[in-house]
């Protein structure tokens, strides 16, 4: 017994020694590790700063008035980068009322001016969310020693949203001209003087509404194998061509497709994705189908600080396809009203508004709309849009009545039913659910209403799907299963009863 106790005692002692040694070793190694961090020589040269895209307003340089040293591309890109960073840190400073980053991009005398204002704003509990959407700097003078540059930044479009005590006070978009002096200090181009020369309200009014064909008979399209991931690695243009041919043969004339924001590369849209989209549009053109392209799918931030990135995304895609024959319209975002609760209604609407202005400034020939998820949101921003589109998944019996009511509100703008449909799912999760017959009946009745009221429509959707990403309907199996059975064609490629009513003359 005594021996056993001794052994236990010894082993506890031994283990505790081991433990203490392990702890001490860990502490020493942490200390050693800590002492080995810190100044890296390469950082002196600012060569290793990794740049992530956080602020990309549209910058157009003019350089015809430079009276000094000839500007080279390298210096110009450094100036641009630092100058935009200066705006970015200022935007952040006004949002948080903190001084972080200002030191790096404003000289000692200039930064005081910002500190004074944010100091006062902090006291008054004023915060300002702000961003700039475009800059047109014109260099007046690049000094001979390359240490000073004087420029005028023309037509700076500044968006500001002012809060006091976290309460929204005002939203304003201004367009201003600034004269700026930048000095090269410690490898940074820092703002020395900033003088606002003129300012006025930015005119957000969009051009005259573009007409849209009221004969839209269409369908929302995803390939059967890759729903919500149309442009991914399994992209197969041959399948898409066959599907388009099938759609054409049903006498439909329009499809609606979705451009996932992240998958397309966010601010820097990938050329490979544009190529795939071009193939899709080409295939649609070949089959006499018009395409409504829905942007910003799976995007849900809307933060002011993100705007410049979103705009680069939209700008790239819209510029690339604005002359494509298959293009019918741009749908800014699918069902953005679903984000009202989580992101704030105003944030979402301001975001939509500025994207509409942007798209319409680039593409003057194609209509712009927003795919609202229900009738009650459908009239939001109607004056900025060329046509109003909405989705309807509610009771079919009151559709006509609600449609007519909406028509009265919207008045002059055409209405398009961007999505509607019903599942044919009946099974374990919904034993008394729908059926193929019910689905067919639904379409039959809806088509009758469309024919009567001449309602342009796009149904949801061509196929039943196998895999639905959880971002779309969540994890719940009864929802997922229902979503899998919205198609006119089942998982085996057979036409369901509803196919007959995909379109009725």
């Amino acid at each position, binding site marked *: 017994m005594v021996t056993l106790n001794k052994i236990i005692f010894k082993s506890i002692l031994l283990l505790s020694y081991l433990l203490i040694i392990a702890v001490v070793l860990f502490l020493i190694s942490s200390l050693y590790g800590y002492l080995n961090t810190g100044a890296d020589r390469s950082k002196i040269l600012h060569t290793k700063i990794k740049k992530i895209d956080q602020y990309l307003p549209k910058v157009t340089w003019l350089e015809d008035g430079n*009276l*000094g*040293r000839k500007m080279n591309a390298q210096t110009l890109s450094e100036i641009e980068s630092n100058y935009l960073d200066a705006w970015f840190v*200022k935007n952040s400073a*006004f949002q948080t009322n903190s001084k972080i980053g200002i030191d790096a991009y404003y000289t000692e*005398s*200039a930064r*005081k*001016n*910002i500190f*004074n*204002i*944010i*100091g*006062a*704003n902090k006291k*008054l509990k*004023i915060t*300002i969310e702000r961003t700039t959407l*475009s800059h*047109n700097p014109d260099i*007046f*003078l690049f*000094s*001979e*020693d*390359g*240490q*000073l540059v*004087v420029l*005028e930044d*023309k*037509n700076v479009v500044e968006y*500001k949203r*002012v809060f*006091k005590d976290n309460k929204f*006070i*005002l939203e*304003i978009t*201004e*367009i*201003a001209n*600034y*004269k700026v*002096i930048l000095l090269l200090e410690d490898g940074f181009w820092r703002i*020395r*003087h*900033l*003088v*606002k*020369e*003129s*300012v*006025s*309200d*930015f*005119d957000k009014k969009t051009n005259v509404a573009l007409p849209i064909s009221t004969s839209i008979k269409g369908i929302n399209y995803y390939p059967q194998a890759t729903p919500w991931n149309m442009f991914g690695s399994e992209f197969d243009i041959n399948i898409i061509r066959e599907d388009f041919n099938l759609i054409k043969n049903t006498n439909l004339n329009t499809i609606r497709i979705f451009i996932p924001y992240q998958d397309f590369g966010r601010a820097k849209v990938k050329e490979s994705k544009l190529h795939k989209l071009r193939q899709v549009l080409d295939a649609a053109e070949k089959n006499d189908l018009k395409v409504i392209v829905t942007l910003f799918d799976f995007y849900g931030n809307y933060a002011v600080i993100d705007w410049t990135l979103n705009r680069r995304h939209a700008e790239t895609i819209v510029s690339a396809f604005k002359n494509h024959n298959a293009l019918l319209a741009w749908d800014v975002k699918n069902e953005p009203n679903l984000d009202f609760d989580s992101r704030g209604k105003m944030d979402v609407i301001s975001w939509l508004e500025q994207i509409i202005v942007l798209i319409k*400034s*680039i593409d*003057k020939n194609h209509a712009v709309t927003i795919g609202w998820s229900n009738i009650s949101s459908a009239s939001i921003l109607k004056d900025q849009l060329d046509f109003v589109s909405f989705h309807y998944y509610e009771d079919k019996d009151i559709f006509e009545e609600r449609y007519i009511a909406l028509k009265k509100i919207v008045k002059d703008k055409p209405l398009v039913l961007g999505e509607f449909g019903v599942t044919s799912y009946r099974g374990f999760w919904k034993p008394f659910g729908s059926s193929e017959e019910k689905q067919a009946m639904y379409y039959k009745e809806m088509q009758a209403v469309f024919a009567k009221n001449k309602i342009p429509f796009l149904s949801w959707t061509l196929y039943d799907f196998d895999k639905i990403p959880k971002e779309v309907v969540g994890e719940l199996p009864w929802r997922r299963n229902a979503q899998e059975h919205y198609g006119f064609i089942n998982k085996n490629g057979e036409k369901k009863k509803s196919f007959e009513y995909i379109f009725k003359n």
Partner: protein
Amino acid sequence: MNFRNQLFFLFSLFVTCSVTGQEIMKKKRDFVLISKGTHFVAGSTITLEFKGNSAISCEMYCANSYGSTLVKPQLQGARIFFKIPAYLSTKTGVLNWRIVGLKQPLFGSFKIVPKESPSALETYVGPPSIEAGGSDYSMLVVIPTDNLDNPLRQDTPVSIQQQFLASEKNKLIFTKNLIAFKHIFSPLKTGRMLLSSEVLGLNSKEYDINVMPAIATNFNIYSNRNHTYADGNQITTFTTSIIKDKNNNTISDGNFVYFFITNKIGDLLKTSGTTIAGVATAKIIHPDYEENWNIKAYILGMAESNTLKIKYKKVIANFEVAFIKNNRKVTVGPIKSFMGQLIPDGIQVKISIYKDKKILNEIIKSSREGFVSFNLNQSIYKNGEYDFKISTAKVHKTFQSITLW
């Protein structure tokens, strides 16, 4: 392009707006602006006065060059005052405001102008050294600011003083786009140029620019040597004339001058030196045999010299060779120089060993006290007949059928 047009339209829109200064719509409204004035001096107290329904709760958004804030109203009966805070009113530029809380939009803007008198002259001069000759230039940039660190108004006169050697110049320039600047072109002579600026009685400190000589022009070279013999021991020194730039300024110290020497058979030798006070010096050891050298010097990419020809006389006409110790020790010498003295140590002697007309080996040794000896090892050179060729200073001697034993 269309986007540009739109921007241009907007641009022209705001130009018209800013010209009118204060934008007020004429409709019946809650507030009416009473204050007049479209220009205020920075740092002055700026209060906007309105007449209207003071029961309306409102605030004023205002934004200057650096940022924006909200201002609370002060009420006096039916008069409403908004005092622009000092942290906005001290900076120049357009200050735009908008009353928040009214039914009709009420907004406007005014300009804050800098004070008249400067309190600081921020002056930047660079590059700090330029090349004489009138084509290179430096630049002087002056940012005159008032005591609130605002750049002075457009067309503020800035006088630039410039002193160089005997000349003193004064030129009046005017600020434009926040700054005044002047190109400072180099004079023909080298030296130090002093600059200063003055704005409305306020003087800057002194700035200087070094006017450096321009690049070298062609020059002459000379040689200097103790004697003309090719003894492989003395040193020949090459010097250049005082190298000048095109304006007769002595070039900067440290210009690298290469002396390229072409010998009789076309081989190139090279020596070099850097200039001090315009003169570069380079040295090279005499050849150890008769030579004719052509020397030409270059400052690479800039200038070159004349071609200098020098001759070295032969010093070794003949030498003795002795085979001793079974002919296995070959002693060359005494090798004598031009006065009959023993040649200084270090001259090279080469022995080539042939057997049956085929070369077996070549051995090179340097002389010591006028002699060189070669030992022909028995284990390498077996007993038998060999031919030898011995050369030094381009003098050759051959020995045939020497028997080693």
